[in-house]
């Protein structure tokens, strides 16, 4: 479902220095795969996730999502794709403060063109991550693990085919990390494509396929036989 062909991304830092973060990424990820992308910090993992998630555009190369070239799309089309097909999970949770878990999970549904029972869908997403009893809690009233589970509920509430998790366990203790990883495994078993970025080998090892990056390029691509 994801095809990256010679993707490059170059940032212009203040002072005119060019930083070539991605230097020709070639990668194909099929529907329903559970992939982890590993690289040390600052190596362009988030940059790549943003490109895959249609939040950012590459400087060069081609990106086909479900066979459609993303580069030519306008901002509204990209927004629609993010809304329908993609669910982001971030390292720092990125929940709205002073907003209940339920309202946080409702967020993607608000921007859906479909006529939905927003409250009911959000509530069942929270139940799916084991937080049916925390709907009225604000982020400040939840533990880190619970906050990340709210964030996962938000990512899957619109029923996307692709879950993109950028260091989802980076801010969690090991017990919470395990809970969160268990949810990702379950999402994968439900048939969703899950791409997980991490620099922790133990986390990466839980995926079926591990892709390692260095200096803006893919250096290894290893599949685990289950």
């Amino acid at each position, binding site marked *: 479902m994801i095809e990256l062909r010679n993707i490059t991304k170059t940032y212009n830092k203040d002072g005119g220095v060019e930083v070539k973060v991605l230097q020709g990424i070639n990668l194909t990820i099929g529907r329903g795969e559970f992939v982890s992308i590993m690289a040390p910090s600052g190596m362009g993992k988030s940059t790549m996730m943003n490109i895959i998630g249609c*939040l*950012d555009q590459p400087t060069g190369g081609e990106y086909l999502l479900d066979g459609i070239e993303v580069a030519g799309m306008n*901002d509204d089309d990209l*927004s*629609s794709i*993010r*809304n*329908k097909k993609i669910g*982001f999970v971030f390292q720092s949770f990125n929940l709205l403060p002073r907003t209940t878990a339920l309202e946080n999970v409702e967020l993607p549904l608000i*921007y859906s063109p479909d006529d939905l029972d927003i409250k009911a869908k959000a509530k069942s997403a929270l139940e799916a991550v084991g937080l049916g009893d925390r709907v009225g809690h604000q982020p400040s009233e939840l533990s880190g693990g619970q906050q990340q589970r709210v964030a996962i509920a938000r990512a899957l509430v619109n029923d996307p085919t692709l879950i993109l998790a950028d260091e989802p366990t980076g801010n969690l203790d090991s017990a919470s990390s395990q809970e969160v990883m268990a949810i990702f495994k379950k999402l994968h078993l439900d048939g969703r494509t899950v791409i997980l970025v991490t620099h922790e080998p133990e986390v990466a090892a839980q995926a079926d396929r591990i892709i390692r990056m260095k200096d803006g390029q893919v250096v290894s691509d290893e599949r685990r036989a289950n």
Partner: protein
Amino acid sequence: MKTSRIIGLAMSGLARQKMRTFLMMLGIVIGVATLTVIISLTKGAQHKVMKGIKNFGANSVMASAGGGRMFGPPDGSTVTLTMADAEAMQASIKGIKHIAPFTMHVAQTVVAGSKNTEAAVFGVTPAFADAWQWFAEKGDFISDEDVSGLSKNCVLGQTVVRELFGDQDPIGETVRLNNTNFTVVGVLTKRGASPHGMDMDNRVLVPLSTAMRRLYNTTALGMIRLYVDDPDRLDEVTASVTAILRERHHIAPPQEDDFRVTNSMAMAGTIKGVSKTLTTFLLLLASISLVVGGLVIANIMLISVNERKKEIGIRRAFGAKARDIRQQFLGEALIVTLFGGIGGTLLGIAISLAIAGIKKMPAVLSWEPFVLAIVFSAAVGIVAGLQPARKAAGLDPVNAIKG
């Protein structure tokens, strides 16, 4: 996005920042409240003036003794208007239905038993009642016999009755004017305020002859009032009166008139002119406060957009279009100003009523301030919210989400 969803988003955004929302609303509340107070009170004042003009009489022309520069009622020292002038008018002007020459002496002490009060004393003929369309509510008016016999009968205005007799029936009682005892034969209907705000019910009417010969020993009239059968001829009659008086008083152009002629149309014109200037000035003031309120909102919204970059980035990541973000922030500005407008109108109404109560000024509440407030507030909201909303919508999602 559906309007109801935009409203919901904007409302919850505002609810999360209550203090800020309050501050944004404040300017609009003050501006709209000022506007409402101005409109209610000027309308009240206009209403009062129009009532005064109605009390003056729509069909009337009035000539007063004394020059154009003089203001206020003439007194006994101005001897420029005489019975002969009145007779000349009656003889040569067509279409006069009633003509009422009368004298007027303000601030006269009126005594009844142990009580006394100050009132204006008018020397009148029976025509006075017709010329003013103002009759006795109880008892009789001054009659022809009273005038020809220099009788010591009088008719009281309702303020004098209240001051001297309270709830008692004054008919047949005695009042003392200038050391002369008068018998009360009638009470006038209530009339209210004159165009100048004078209490028209604070007066005593006596026969014209009695006033001129017995009380004040003068040949001078204070005023001559003409009741014209056709109000369209007011200006024509006014001009005729002026011409007759100039000729009879031998006044040539460089010389100033020793009398004043006015009618209700002219009075309404002057007073409307004054209140229009005042209203324009106050409306300008209210507009300035609305503009300032709008600037405050625009600034606070810009700060808010900066502080909520992360929220904007998150929304974009989950599928919000640039347009959705713009509508959300524009919605916030509009809701602030609309609620501010409604709150300001209510506050303005409360203040108007309070001022009306304390200052005894009339306030007229109407739908205009409400509609104006909604229109103004919506305009201010759109103008103030547009720039911040554009800025929010234009943020790059990747950078925004970093906060």
